[in-house]
């Protein structure tokens, strides 16, 4: 298995920079997801790795081979990069049967017929589509087409697999199921995988590491938990989940250095302790991130990092959980409580943040 | 005494001329030998695969064992191919059979043809045909008036070109377009000269309907669309036997187009070409043309023509269009037939 290395990669269309100075290393066997809102340059990045899009700057290497480097006039054609790819539209060739679709990567590599048959069967079995080998490709449901696309991408055991929003055309239930199946398959085969999605749940469930992008730039790279719990910017923080973001000022830094550091912060009508890994100074304004699932009706614990009081202005039953919205002096806060909690609009209540759950980031 | 002298002179002349004849035939034998060595001759022709033309070529091949390659083209295409090839230095053709005026034009605009030299059979040419330095007459296409015998009663049949201007034919004459170069304009030009300007002016008043496809037009007359068609090339009616049409040769005579041979410059097979020209002037060859209702150019062919062809083979000729008058004639036709 090969690693993929992007160094200062950028891509401009005319005057518009779609991908700006991206640095990324995908280790061999790793599952890395590019995550970001639509139009942030994920697809462009992926296509540059595939060789479908030319780079206008930087260098891309796959394994030990430089595949794109405009400065040295290198641009390896896509067919010579030995990749597997799953397209958002699946790109199932409508004029071929399922078998021919999957066999295609082997046929163009002029493998012997017997080998092709065997490997196609194996690939189809892997995605549980062996019964459909003779079906005309267009006569498949979305989920089936997706499996065929995956089988096709993996049939010649590529070093690197690229996937562009492969699940976005499926319904919610199938999406979860296919995602899980794919992840276990990927782990089993240990294929280096670069995955593109705008769906954070999908990204977090599948990835070893997530690359959060916006406006063509990488905001943060890290494991799902790290990205989620320790975002390095307000943008990252707000993109994952639907957090509360509160204005505050740093009033003190905890003496014993730890990772992360702990700061005392002071907001509008509240004060508390927030973690952070940026070197904030006293008096600096920060944004404090409070995830809805970390807030609870208090007081429960003595070591809560902060407390707020306010009036319930919305209460929505969601089955497993109940979402509440509270108007406080610090602004509106939303959070989740067990479904059976009694909370009516107009009730006054106090809420608190679990210990070490608040996270401070620089505003902006 | 003077009588004796006369006899002596005559005898001497006879001996002398027979000597030149034998000298000439010795020359000609050399030509024939050289032609056979050349083995092939390339002709550019406007005949477009006419059966009598093909028959002449076939008899030539059979007689001499020399292969004939004939490239059939329409007039302007032929001229342009010859011109282009010569200008580009690709001398692919040996000889051409084209109208007299086209040869005149070639002589005027460039250096495309060479001297033909003596052609023995040219001595047998009929009046008014004669060779020039660079051309030898090949055959003649006279034209007359075509009538539909169902629509034109025998007593109404035009006898003279003037009869076309009878008011009863107003709007009923189909004609080859007289404005552009072609048979229509040839007729226009010859009639202008021989019948006088008023004739053409009156004809224009008859509002003839113009068309551009002579072969189909004759059939349109046969089918009864129009009672009269001018000008009808005799030969083009020879294969309409069985249809209710008849070709009238007006008493004033028939305008005609004359086809002539010329030898192309830098011909690769000049001797074979000259042999072919000579073969074309054989009575047997000309007879094929006469039987196709054309006018043979040598003596002795018209007499042997089939009965139905005799009249055409001996038709009175009226004249042909000349290169010098052509622009004026085309201009005039354009003016009369706006």
């Amino acid at each position, binding site marked *: 298995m090969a690693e993929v290395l992007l160094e200062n990669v950028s891509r401009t269309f005319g005057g518009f920079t779609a991908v700006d100075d991206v640095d990324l290393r995908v280790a061999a066997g790793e599952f890395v997801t590019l995550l970001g809102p639509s139009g942030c340059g994920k697809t462009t990045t992926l296509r540059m790795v595939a060789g479908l899009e030319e780079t206008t700057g930087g260098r891309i290497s796959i394994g030990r081979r430089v595949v794109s480097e405009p400065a040295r006039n290198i641009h390896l054609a896509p067919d010579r990069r030995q990749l597997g790819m799953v397209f958002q539209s699946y790109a199932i060739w409508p004029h071929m049967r399922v078998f021919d679709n999957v066999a295609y990567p082997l046929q163009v590599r002029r493998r012997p017929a017997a080998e092709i048959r065997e490997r196609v069967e194996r690939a189809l079995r892997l995605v549980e589509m062996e019964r459909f080998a003779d079906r005309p490709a267009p006569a498949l449901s979305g989920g089936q087409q997706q499996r065929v696309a995956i089988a096709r991408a993996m049939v010649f055991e590529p070093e690197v697999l690229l996937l562009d929003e492969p699940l976005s055309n499926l319904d919610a239930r199938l999406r979860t199921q296919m995602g899980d199946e794919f992840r276990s398959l990927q782990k089993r085969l240990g294929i280096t995988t670069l995955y593109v999605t705008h769906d954070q749940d999908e990204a977090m469930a599948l990835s070893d590491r997530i690359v959060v992008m916006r406006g063509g730039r990488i905001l943060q790279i890290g494991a799902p938990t790290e990205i989620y719990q320790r975002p390095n910017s307000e943008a990252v923080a707000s993109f994952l989940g639907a957090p509360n973001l509160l204005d505050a000022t740093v009033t003190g830094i905890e003496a014993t250095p730890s990772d992360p550091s702990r700061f005392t912060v002071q907001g509008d009508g509240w004060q508390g302790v927030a973690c952070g890994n940026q070197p904030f100074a006293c008096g600096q304004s920060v944004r404090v991130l409070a995830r809805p699932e970390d807030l609870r009706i208090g007081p429960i614990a003595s070591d809560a990092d902060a407390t707020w009081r306010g009036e319930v202005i919305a209460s929505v039953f969601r089955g497993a959980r109940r979402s509440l919205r509270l108007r406080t002096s610090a602004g509106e806060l939303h959070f989740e409580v067990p479904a059976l909690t009694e909370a009516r609009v107009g009730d006054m209540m106090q809420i608190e943040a679990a210990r070490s759950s608040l996270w401070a980031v620089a505003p902006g | 005494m003077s009588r004796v002298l006369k006899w002596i002179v005559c005898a001497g002349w006879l001996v002398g001329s027979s000597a030149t004849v034998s000298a000439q035939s010795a020359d000609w034998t050399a030509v024939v030998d050289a032609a056979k060595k050349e083995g092939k001759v390339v002709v550019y022709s406007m005949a477009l695969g006419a059966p009598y033309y093909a028959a002449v070529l076939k008899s030539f091949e059979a007689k001499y064992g020399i292969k004939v390659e004939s490239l059939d083209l329409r007039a302007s295409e032929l001229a342009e191919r010859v*011109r*282009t090839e010569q200008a580009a230095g690709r001398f692919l053709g040996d000889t051409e059979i084209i109208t007299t005026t086209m040869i005149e034009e070639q002589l005027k605009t460039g250096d495309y043809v060479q001297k033909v030299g003596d052609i023995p059979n040219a001595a047998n040419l009929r009046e008014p045909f004669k060779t020039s330095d660079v051309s030898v007459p090949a055959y003649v296409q006279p034209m007359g008036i075509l009538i539909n015998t169902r629509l034109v009663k025998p007593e109404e049949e035009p006898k003279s070109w003037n009869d076309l201007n009878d008011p009863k034919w107003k709007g009923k004459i189909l004609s080859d377009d007289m404005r552009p170069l072609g048979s229509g304009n040839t007729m226009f030009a010859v009639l202008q000269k021989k019948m006088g300007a008023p004739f053409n002016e009156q004809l224009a008043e008859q509002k003839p309907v113009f068309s551009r496809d002579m072969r189909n037009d004759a059939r349109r007359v046969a089918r009864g669309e129009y009672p009269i068609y001018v000008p009808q090339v005799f030969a083009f009616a020879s294969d309409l036997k069985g249809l209710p049409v008849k070709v009238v040769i007006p008493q004033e005579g028939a305008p005609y187009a004359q086809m002539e041979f010329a030898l192309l410059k830098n011909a690769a097979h000049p001797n074979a070409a000259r042999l072919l020209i000579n073969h074309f002037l054989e009575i047997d060859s000309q007879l094929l043309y006469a039987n196709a209702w054309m006018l043979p150019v040598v003596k002795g062919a018209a007499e042997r023509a089939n009965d139905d062809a005799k009249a055409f083979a001996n038709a009175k000729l009226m004249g042909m269009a000349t290169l010098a008058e052509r622009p004026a004639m085309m201009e005039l036709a354009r003016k009369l037939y706006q």
Partner: protein
Amino acid sequence: MSTLSSNEITHPPMRWGIRFARLMEGKAPRRLALAALALLLAFLSLYPLSMLLYGSLHTTPPGMAGTFNLSGYIQVFTWPTAVVFANTVGISLLKTVFSLLLAVLFGWIISRTDTPMRGSLEVLITLPFFVPPILTAMAWGMLGNPQVGVINLAWQWLSGSETPLVNVYSYAGVVWHMLQYSTPFLFLFVVEAFRAMDPALEEASRMCGASQWRTFRRVTLPLMLPAVITAFLLSFIRGLESFESPLFFGTPAKIEVVTTAIYNSIHHQSIPNYQFASALSFVIMGLMFLLVIWQWHLLRGRSFQTVTGKGYSPRVIKLGPWRWLTFAVCVLFFIISVVLPIGQLLLGSFFQFFGFYQWDMLTLDHYRSVLGNDEVWRAFRNTFLLGFGGASATMVLGSIVAYVSTRTRWSGRQLIDVLAWLPWMMPGMVLAVGFLWGFAFLPGAITIYGTIWALLIAYVALGTPVSVRVMSAAYHQLSFDLEECSRVHGASWWQTLWRILIALAWPSFAVGWVLTFFGIMRELSASVLLYSVGSEVLSVVLLRMWENGQAEAVSVVGLMMMLLVFLFRWVQLRLIKRYVSTL
């Protein structure tokens, strides 16, 4: 994140072989290929055109002493020529609009409705296109002349009227005759576009509450825009260059168009006036160019990709009893445009002369003379050889050019597109002269002139515009994913072109092939100027027969050609059916 570096990536020392390999990994191969393509197209179109440009600016044709001047162009901008222009544009516009309407109607009926016997109708509707125009012109002359035309006689007999019903020797006659050719031509384009479209797009519109007609107007038609506009342009331009119809039906009515003016100036002048003919052609070309630019403008930046990787199944609209009406419409067109004229020819071919149906003139002589004529067979063989080779080469070239111009963002692709358009915009009669000059004046060592290659090259040049248009219209409908997916999975550019693009667009490929094949079969202007002894082609032989008054023999050959078309189309449609049924 740790800092990244590429130190771990090995950089082998540069040796020559590696440098070359590096070169091949860059853009060099593509640039080379593109340059080769541009050169090839330039030779096919720019080179003969440059000869003509010289001809239009020089008092004499190439190879003759003369001077440069603008008299050819000055002659173009005169009042009589303006009238000729107006006639030409008016006639072509009329016939294009009408035939486009008909073609869209038929395309829709054949590909989208449950009209009975659609397969047979499809073959029948396209038949008129493949008949030599000279034959149908003659047949329509027999049917529609005001004096003794069959239609008029029948009308007068039925109605007791004295005045004729129709007169083909008129504007309407010219338009009508052209219509019979452009309708099938446009139909061939449109029907494939209909077929290639995902019905889901239409269904979506129906689901939104739009009526059938509204759906057709708002969704179906706009999606087919590239195909329809391309077809419109091709047909309009072809209309400007149409020759037989105005010659036959316009001349007697004193209607002159550009082609007849050119014909006069080349074939019926004391000295062929190539300067005027080519100047006139270039002016037309300039006008057409504006049209092409307008087309680019219309299609620019819009996506018409209706064939996606998600697959679809074509579905037909159930018309209920109305399907008999649509059936009747198709049959009516077939009867008027094929049965009437071709029936006339077929019937006529068994009599000694056309139009004289007498028992004693009944004969098989025409068939005997054609079938027993070595020249005809040799011409058939030559034409087939050239047709197969030429059509295949043309389609391959067209597929590549269309690919470059519609599916890449390579710089220089517009140039290639333009180069491929050019020959279409030059009237055939004039372009043929360009080829003659071009081939003859090549350096002496390059002996294309006078060989069969000259014909082949000219045919490829003449056919490329259509093949490019056909293939571009087809490519326009294919989503990029399908192709990129192939590249990523290891297929080279060539493999992708063949196995994905052409394979997907192959109904269009086949249609283009047939169009090109029969285009070659019919081409006369260039053939007659470029053929050499031994390489006679069918059109030259037909010309000979025609000029020898063997109209009946010509129609026998024409009927044989139709039989061939029948066969071709039948096989082709069988194959398309098989292909469609796998969808």
